């Protein structure tokens, strides 16, 4: 019984992290029509930068949350720069843009290996969240519950941003019909940069707060990118609800698969994606993108 409960909490935690990662991926896909193959790298980069800040940079040792915010901002800036300087040069050529993100992801992975070496970095759990919450006989790690709470807060925040603000309305208009959005005076190309930075920041944030449970190691990017891809294919692109539901589903399948069928965990993970592709290509909550 305990085993199943713990596994369930772990699944939801992982689902929460995946939501932070894939919400941006989905928005970028919805708006720019490209799968951003650097998304795993941004996750890893955020994790490395955050871990470095918490361990201490030039003698300054930062508080975990301060480090998280700084690393998020830094990676968001890198994302915005990549969009401005490189993707912007290939307007309308989605294939070329995908290939550029692929090339950038290799460069980022190699740079991380060069800067931080091949050994995994362990990130200490932030102060005050190292304990356990006891419910009856079961003890849940407090940090995992905190991640769930953070994911919910971010989800609500993103929903408010997209549904209740002027910027959100502009982004939704851009996702639905970029040409019409341009006609009515929305600067869609500026939205590209904003959304790319937002997605990069979210991915980096997920990387940092995932650090204490996943640790940070070379190849983390390659582990996370396919998961984001599965979430978005499952949930549908450009849909926040789709990312959320998809993340939770993938979180469960991934953790239960690892525990019950370790040899076939990957296969089990991708099966629902293939089913969705065959039966409902636009994803559970997506609309057909022309």
């Amino acid at each position, binding site marked *: 019984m305990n085993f199943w409960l713990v596994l369930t909490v772990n699944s939801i935690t992982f689902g929460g992290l995946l939501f932070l990662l894939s919400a941006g991926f989905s928005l970028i896909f919805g708006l720019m029509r490209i799968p951003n193959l650097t998304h795993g790298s941004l996750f890893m980069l955020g994790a490395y930068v955050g871990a470095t800040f918490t361990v201490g940079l030039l003698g300054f040792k930062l508080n975990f949350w301060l480090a998280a915010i700084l690393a998020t901002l830094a990676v968001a800036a890198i994302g915005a720069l990549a969009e401005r300087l490189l993707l912007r040069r290939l307007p309308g050529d989605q294939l070329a843009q995908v*290939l550029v993100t692929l090339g950038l992801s290799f460069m980022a992975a190699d740079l991380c290996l060069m800067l931080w070496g091949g050994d995994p970095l362990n990130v200490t759990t932030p102060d005050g969240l190292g304990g356990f919450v006891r419910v009856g006989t079961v003890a849940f790690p407090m940090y995992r519950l905190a991640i769930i709470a953070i994911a919910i807060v971010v989800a609500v925040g993103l929903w408010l941003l997209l549904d209740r603000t002027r910027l959100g309305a502009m982004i939704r208009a851009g996702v639905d019909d970029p040409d019409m959005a341009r006609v009515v005076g929305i600067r869609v190309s500026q939205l590209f940069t904003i959304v790319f930075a937002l997605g990069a920041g979210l991915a980096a944030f997920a990387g940092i707060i995932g650090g204490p449970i996943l640790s940070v190691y070379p190849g983390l990017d390659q582990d996370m990118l396919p998961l984001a891809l599965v979430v978005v294919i499952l949930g549908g692109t450009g849909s926040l609800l789709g990312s959320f539901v998809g993340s939770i589903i993938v979180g469960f399948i991934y953790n239960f698969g690892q525990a019950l069928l370790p040899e076939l965990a990957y296969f089990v993970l991708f099966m629902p994606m293939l089913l969705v592709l065959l039966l409902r290509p636009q994803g559970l909550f997506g609309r057909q993108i022309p």
Partner: protein
Amino acid sequence: MMGNFLTPRCLAIAVAIALLAALPAWMNGVYYVNVASQILFYAVFALGLNVLVGYAGLTSLGHAALFGVAAYATAYMLQLGYGHTESILVALLVGVASMAVYAVLSLRSTGIGFIMITLALGEILWGLAYRWISLTGGDNGINVPKRPAPFGFAMSNATNFYYVTLIVFLLSVIAMAIFVRSPFGAALRGTRDQPRRMNALGYHVWLIRFYACLFSGLLTAVSGILFVYYTQFISPQTLALTSSAEVLLMVIAGGPGTLLGPIVGAGLVVIVKTVVSGFIERWNFLLGAIFVAIVILMPDGLVPGTTRLWRRFIRKRPPAPAKTEAAP
């Protein structure tokens, strides 16, 4: 106009074949002969991917997994104790059958959708190779103890292996040349440029693309088998996204949709990789940088790019105006 160029063209091909055939003689050193073998089987792989990327307009990011599946099938059959002939036949079959499954799943869409599905399928196969330890040996991979010796021609020797690879390479190039000139090749290019019009003309677009996938899968499987006999070892790393990107870089760098492009690309990538890895470990960084640079600066690849420069040089005439790009 082509008729006038036919003679120099034939001459160039004859010279190229003669140079390749004599390569072990003028390249002294097993090391260089081995590099040449690598270029040739990677060129076969790139030719196979080019069928989809260049002629069908379908970019696959999961082709290394197919290459790896054929290699694994060979190694696994040999491990079970079967002979080389049976192993190679089974590997070809498994490679083409995997491609058929790939095609059925990924041909539901084109463009970005096709990339995402092939990427995901490649990751599945990589994950299986990595995690299904009882079948694949996981990270330890599978060793292939011996290379075959068809008709007593021992391939264990680097020069002999080179010649067998050269023959397979030439056969693949001939197959590609026939394919490109055939009505099927024309139909495939039609489905790339005008799928709806082709459909209206009565062509079965899906089926044409499916056959193209099978052809691509066959060449990929052939190169995978050569690869596993060359390295005599196969591990999940061969199936990884990096490998798929490497072969895609060969096609894109050389020039997709040209016969010579992937061959030049394979030569470029293998040489840069071999030379660079002698000095630094940062091959992946360079791979990424070359990728970005080529996509941004020379989007149609080296072969069409240099051909255009050459034509401009001999005609002293401005080239066709570059395609106008939509404002962002």
